[in-house]
């Protein structure tokens, strides 16, 4: 505490007396808040009220922790600002997980519905390292077996490992559907943005389809495909949902381009494809990427719901399967995997955006 105080004083030279006063005032306040935190929980425990009123206790704790963090934040030196903010951003979720663990351990919440984070972690490890004989699947496809399988069976053996994986099945469906849907969607969006006639003809129809819940077209798509239970309909629904979203977003992006850029492009000799490549696409790029972020979220919703309904593999299938056999830890593990997939894919998109739009750094 005194260490931070010294740093602060060094960073902001001011009349020594006043700084010392302010520092002392803040330290006193911080001590008071921490004391309040101890008294609040201690009093509730002593009165045997913590257990029945655990949610009220937690709300009070949350408020007091916010007050304490704010007091600390006021005296953090600029050099430590980033670490302070990181501690808040990552420390709080850890604290929440610890609270969850303790509440379930204490028997306040039923571990059947809210398994402890440690048990969810163990379940995640379990589904990663074990092969499920009944469904013939594993979470990642047991990548540590790749060298030995390659030696015994060659590439088909490695491929068989990938084919048994839930994560790769889901990623493949999302990835292929995303690309198949996004590229034509962006192209149609550009055409609609540039050509008034096409826009007037298609806008109402697209808007009507856009508000349709994408999962609702799954039965129709299954009907159309020769193999209703194969990969085709699943990828097609992802592609369709991405397509309409990208068409509408790209059209808005193209229509929003400052006309002076189009005039400049034309005046300096850009026509047709060169105008598209050098002016229209880069100018609409920020909106296109905003659309891709939305489309990624939609694609994950669609694929997980489809895997709930009709799949023999995939992260959605896995989650639903463990509901059917009532194994909540592994259901939660499935959710964690979906979250990780979402975060990883979003980062991938951000990486691509920074690559394609270096001027926006």
């Amino acid at each position, binding site marked *: 505490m005194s260490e931070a105080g010294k740093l602060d004083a060094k960073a902001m030279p001011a009349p020594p007396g006043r700084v010392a006063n302010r520092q002392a005032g803040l330290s006193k306040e911080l001590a008071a808040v921490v004391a309040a935190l101890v008294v609040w929980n201690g009093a509730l425990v002593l009165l045997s009220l913590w257990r029945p009123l655990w949610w009220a206790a937690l709300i009070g704790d949350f408020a007091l922790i916010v007050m304490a963090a704010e007091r600390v934040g006021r005296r953090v030196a600029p050099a430590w600002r980033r670490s302070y903010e990181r501690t808040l951003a990552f420390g709080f979720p850890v604290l929440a997980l610890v609270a969850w663990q303790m509440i379930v351990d204490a028997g306040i919440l039923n571990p059947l519905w809210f398994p402890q984070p440690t048990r969810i972690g163990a379940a995640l490890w379990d589904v990663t390292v074990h092969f499920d004989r009944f469904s013939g699947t594993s979470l990642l496809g047991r990548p540590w077996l790749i060298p030995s399988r390659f030696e015994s069976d060659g590439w088909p053996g490695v491929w068989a490992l990938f084919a048994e994986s839930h994560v790769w099945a889901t990623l493949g469906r999302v990835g292929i559907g995303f690309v198949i849907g996004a590229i034509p969607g962006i192209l149609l969006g550009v055409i609609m943005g540039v050509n008034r006639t096409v826009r007037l003809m298609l806008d109402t129809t697209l808007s009507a389809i856009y508000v349709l819940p994408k999962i609702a077209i799954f039965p129709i798509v299954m009907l159309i495909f020769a193999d209703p239970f194969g990969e085709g309909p699943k990828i097609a629904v992802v592609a369709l949902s991405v397509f309409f979203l990208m068409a509408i977003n790209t059209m808005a992006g193209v229509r929003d381009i*400052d006309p*002076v*850029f189009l*005039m*400049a492009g*034309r*005046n*300096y*000799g*850009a026509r047709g494809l*060169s105008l598209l490549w*050098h*002016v229209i696409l*880069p*100018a609409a*790029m920020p909106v296109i990427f905003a659309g891709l972020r939305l489309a990624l979220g939609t694609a994950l919703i669609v694929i997980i719901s489809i895997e709930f309904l009709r799949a023999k593999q995939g992260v959605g299938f896995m989650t639903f399967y463990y509901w059917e056999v009532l194994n909540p830890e592994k259901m939660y593990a499935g959710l964690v995997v979906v979250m990780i997939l979402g975060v990883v894919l979003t980062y991938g998109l951000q990486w691509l955006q920074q690559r394609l*739009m*270096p*001027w*926006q750094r």
Partner: protein
Amino acid sequence: MPDPKDGGSSPEPRLPKIEARDVWKIYDTANGPTTAVENFTLDVADGEFVCIVGPSGCGKSTFLRMLAGLDTHSAGSILIRPGADPKKPLNSVVFQEYAVFPWKTVVENVAFGLQMRGIGRAERLDIASFWLERVGLRKFANYYPSQISGGMKQRVSIVRALANDPEVLLMDEPLGALDAQTRIVLQDELLRIWEETRKTVVYITHSLDEAILLGDRVILMTAHPGRLLTTFPIGIRRPRTVETLNTPEFAELRGEIWQQLAREVSRAMEMQQ
């Protein structure tokens, strides 16, 4: 309407570089037609610097866009005579809002017109660097426009037009969005560059001082509808610099123009009533 190819075959020095005859711009709106530019005639000689001054909304920007071929005219004829080299672009515009592409680096922006004309990468980057050097932006060549100031962006926009080496340079209030100091610096730079290149320029501004400082001829426009009010030849000898603004010659000319302008404006207002 005269055939636009007419002038190309016989490039006599006396033929004007720009010929705009009886140009009208009429917009069809829901409330009936609105005239933006009325019966506007303008000849610009080769190597002449013409400034058009008028209140905002008088149609001067519309006229410039019609000259540039970015907007259609409703009646009349507009001709820019090609020069000896048919590959040279007829016109390049410097826009008020810079219109420097944020997604291209400074040097890519300057080389853009050349790129669109199919000039090879090495050559166009050479030309662009040469022009950046002339306005002191060489070391910002690989910056993106978001990383440089407004004055620098407008310099980029101006040399983008000059690197394109057009027959005619069309400038639409290029300094209108800049602060007063940057504006003076850029006026000086414009005078210096024009002295070196002697391009044919049509320059739109709402500042009478700027028009007198830069132009060989100042044309005043009225608003609603946009009409040519009167023309003043500017006899101040060149080369000029911003110091010219402080000469008695300049002050005298400006006073004279203001006087005539006041008379013309009040007459125009009477006519409208």
